[in-house]
């Protein structure tokens, strides 16, 4: 005669074993997520590194503000070049204008300086240059073709190109005397 089956007295009281599957799935989801977020703390997502650094500078052929024949990038090879994208409506450009003009005069003959005007008008540019003076020419880029070729996202942006025509540095914020000196050193042997 079979004794009535007794429900296991320990079933209700004993704690169930840890569900390994849940633990594994949880680990598989949690660990990579935390790792990725941790690794990226401290990076600034808004500063985009330029892919052109170390690559040949894109070609251009632009007319100077004030008239004259177009200036081509080909003709500029052989001497280091500082190419500065700016605009009259850009307040930080005014801040760095002083630094650029001074450095350009100081390095006259050794390093060429060129401005490229971004999304602006010729008369405004000429008025600006008349008022604030300049020791180097500025070129007009009417449909932002050159800006697009150089990967310009805003102004001011400055490219430091060596004598062989390779971009050695890009600075996407207003230049100070110090950053100017640092970067010119990269293109000036």
């Amino acid at each position, binding site marked *: 005669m079979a004794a009535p089956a007794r*429900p*296991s007295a320990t*079933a*209700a009281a004993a704690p*169930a074993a840890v569900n390994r599957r849940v633990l594994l799935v949880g680990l598989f989801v949690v660990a990579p997520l935390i790792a990725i977020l941790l690794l990226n703390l401290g990076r600034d997502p808004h500063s*985009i*590194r*330029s*892919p*052109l650094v170390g*690559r040949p500078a*894109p*070609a*251009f*052929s*632009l*007319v100077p503000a004030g008239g004259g024949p*177009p*200036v081509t*990038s080909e003709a500029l090879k052989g001497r280091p070049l500082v190419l500065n994208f700016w605009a009259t409506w850009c307040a930080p450009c005014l801040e760095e204008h002083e630094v650029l003009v001074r450095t350009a005069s100081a390095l006259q003959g050794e390093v060429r300086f060129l401005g490229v005007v971004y*999304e602006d008008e010729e008369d405004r540019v000429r008025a600006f240059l008349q008022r604030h003076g300049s020791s180097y020419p500025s*070129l*007009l*880029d*009417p*449909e*932002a*073709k*050159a*800006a*697009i*070729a*150089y*990967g310009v*996202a*805003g102004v001011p942006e400055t490219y430091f190109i060596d004598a062989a025509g390779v971009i050695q540095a890009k600075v996407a914020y207003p230049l100070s005397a110090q950053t100017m000196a640092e970067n010119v050193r990269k293109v000036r042997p």
Partner: protein
Amino acid sequence: MRRWLAAVLVLAALAAGAVAQGRGEDPARVVGPPRGPRLQGAALDARTAEVAALLRCPVCQGLSVADSPSTMASNMRGHVKELVAAGYDEDQILAYFERSYGEFVRLKPPLRGVNWLVWMAPVMGLLLGAAVIAWALRAPRPAPAAAGAHEKPGPVEDVPGPDSLPADPALARYVLRVRERAYGWPGGVSPSRDATASAAPAAPAPGSGA
């Protein structure tokens, strides 16, 4: 004859304009000669919009060149239109902008390196999920009693839901009457269930004694 002359004049004007205004660089030096057909008219506009929607406007947050109202985006749209009109295909145009701005400018992740993961993961997720559902809906396990072994049946808490009935027929009749009284369900059966006429146990006529 007149059309040919017009074409020559237009080309001459363009050339003159190009000389007078200065030029950007020739895209062919970057991405090779145009690989696709030259487009114009509505086809040109449509294709421009398509390609522009794949480029990220570098000054706006996350918007495509097609969507963004900024002047930079407008310039880029113009550039894309020229490239499309000249016959460059989508890959070439994207490559041209990528040369200047980096992989950042492509809104659709290209299949390189670890990028495949972002395209495959949803598919793998779908397959995995479908497998889990199939497993969950498979034939019932043989021991339903064991499933309830951990839980002590409580007095009030384990009332069956609106769709299950007790096994005992007399009890089931009472439950149906209670439902009829409490919810107003005729015959104690939920109206939505009744409408689809699923296999519900035959309900006693309302009002008849059990």
